[in-house]
């Protein structure tokens, strides 16, 4: 029989997170003798691009599609169509809305990832006044909102719930700016925020490249000692930055694991026709160089050994 065809659709081509995910899937596919097709939106938020990728992969004979939805709601009708054609669809990294739209979900909870670093930042700050800079993704992105609101929640501030796409506000936030998850833009955003509010004690960043940019800006202003930077992702580079003291703590996720599990499920489906179902939390771990009281965290060594699901 032909090798089973499995499609993997990421949000973009370029985010190291998704590149890792693709690598994990490719390795697993090779090991299991499956053919992996990969596709992506042109940019984060490109729902139409993902729909096109789903259609083309089905046309190419894919029986299982793994997808990290760019837009949790907007992708649902296309997934419904695919499932109606007998294709098993598994969401990776983030759920669709409603979550039942896919057969299964292998993911991290982004809201929870935010909560963890929020708690850490609150504890690490101790008694100092909270003057928070929020370096978000870009307007309208659900993951951006989930991490942002989770952080506020963990920090003990009022925040919208996990489903909201609105960025929560609080008087403790002295500056909010978009980093586009990019180091150079993160740096620019942080520089401008420092002009607005020179006394910063906590910096929330959407991901580790943005955190690195924020650190650069702080360092240039000679303020890197005074502020705690927290972030999300737990990529190998990010963990290194935690070790180097640039980032205080980050919530680590496991894209390789998600992908490998997805491919295994796809091969199994091709063999036996058995579908997986339900939510499998691939877990979030808080990685911090210095543990603080009252918040569970693992150290850098543990983070490095696990970074992005390396086994």
């Amino acid at each position, binding site marked *: 029989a032909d090798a089973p065809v499995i499609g993997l659709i990421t949000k973009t081509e370029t985010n190291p997170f998704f590149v890792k995910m*693709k690598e994990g899937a490719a390795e697993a596919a090779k090991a299991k003798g499956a053919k992996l097709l990969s596709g992506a939106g042109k940019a984060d938020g*490109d729902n139409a691009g993902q729909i096109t990728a789903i259609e*083309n992969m089905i046309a190419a004979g894919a029986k299982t599609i793994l997808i990290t939805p760019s837009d949790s709601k907007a992708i649902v009708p296309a997934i419904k169509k695919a499932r109606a054609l007998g294709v098993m669809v598994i969401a990776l990294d983030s759920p669709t809305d409603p979550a039942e739209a896919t057969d299964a979900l292998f993911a991290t909870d982004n809201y929870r990832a935010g909560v963890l670093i929020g708690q850490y930042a609150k504890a690490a700050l101790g008694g100092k006044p909270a003057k928070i800079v929020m370096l978000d993704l870009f307007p309208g992105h659900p993951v951006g909102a989930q991490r942002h609101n989770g952080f506020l929640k963990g920090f003990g501030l009022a925040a919208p719930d996990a489903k909201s796409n609105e960025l929560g506000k609080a008087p403790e936030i002295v500056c909010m700016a978009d980093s586009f998850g990019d180091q150079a833009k993160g740096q620019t955003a942080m520089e401008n925020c420092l002009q607005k509010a020179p006394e910063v004690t906590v910096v929330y960043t959407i991901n580790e490249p943005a955190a690195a940019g924020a650190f650069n800006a702080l360092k240039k202003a000679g303020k890197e000692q005074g502020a705690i930077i927290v972030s999300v992702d737990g990529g190998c580079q990010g963990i290194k930055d935690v070790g180097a003291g640039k980032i205080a703590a980050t919530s680590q996720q496991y894209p390789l694991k998600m992908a490998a599990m997805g491919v295994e499920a796809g091969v199994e489906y091709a063999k036996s026709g058995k579908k997986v179902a339900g939510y499998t939390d691939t877990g979030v771990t808080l990685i911090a160089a210095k543990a603080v009281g009252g918040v569970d965290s693992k150290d850098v060594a543990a983070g490095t050994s696990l970074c992005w699901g390396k086994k």
Partner: protein
Amino acid sequence: MSTTTLSPPAVTTMRALHDKLPPLGTLGPLVALLAACVFFATQSDRFLTGANLSLVLQQVMVVGVIAIGQTLIILTAGIDLSCGMVMALGGIVMSKFATELGLPPALAIACGIAVTTLFGLINGLLVTRIKLPPFIVTLGTLNIAFAITQLYSNSQTVTELPPALTALGNTFTFAGTEVAWGALLMLALFGLAWFVLRETAAGRHVYAVGNNAEATRLVGIPTQRVLLGVYVIAGLFYGIASLLSVARTGVGDPNAGQTENLDAITAVVLGGTSLFGGRGVVLGTLVGALIVGVFRNGLTLMGVSSIYQVLVTGVLVILAVAADQLSRKGAR
């Protein structure tokens, strides 16, 4: 004496025949499209199926309809960077009006199209009245439309639409193949645009304005009105594209349209329309949109990984136009 200077009938007939053929500017992209199809057909036996080709048509219908409006604007030597964002705004307006405000679907659709047409009007007024460069105007409205879309939708996707809004995404069976009504609508709109541009005075005036605006004005054509009309009609097309986009995805998506800006311009230019205005054929734009769609579909069928797809697309875009150019040189 006049007969001696007129050319012999043989030459006249030859030339008449030559005039009947489409100009090479349209033929070149068509050859590139066919070549791509032949290539993909040899690589994957799934490519040349009716179902797959119908799929490609569905995938390009949104960009295709946007690109009609974009063609009109580029023919007048303008450019519209706002097209995708305006389209997204239209989609949000019609889906929110139909769900939250509970308007009847037809009215909600009309409101959405009215908003995109209004944006076309604003673009047009800024270009014609204050004489701003279209690039700047539409760069501005691009940002404005994006911001309004996000603010109005609160960045939330609008779901649970009434079926009337997504009807164009439904299919009918033709010769054993499922064809989407929206794809049919796109083809009809291309036909309409082609007819108007070619067979009516208004259409010829669009070319004239792009070709030599001052001469067109001196001849007594209200160039400003032609320009304004083009921007408004482009806005109307974006509104129809909004509806197609909503129908295709089944939701009102505030992040739609972000890649359509460049895609639409690419389709127009690949189709042989000059960015300097006055030269081009709208059917070339259809071919240009199809080239992009066929590449994406064919490469996926071949199992080319997506980053290599980008690489291959880059090379092929250049090759397609280069082949066209070189063949024209040969013909001279």
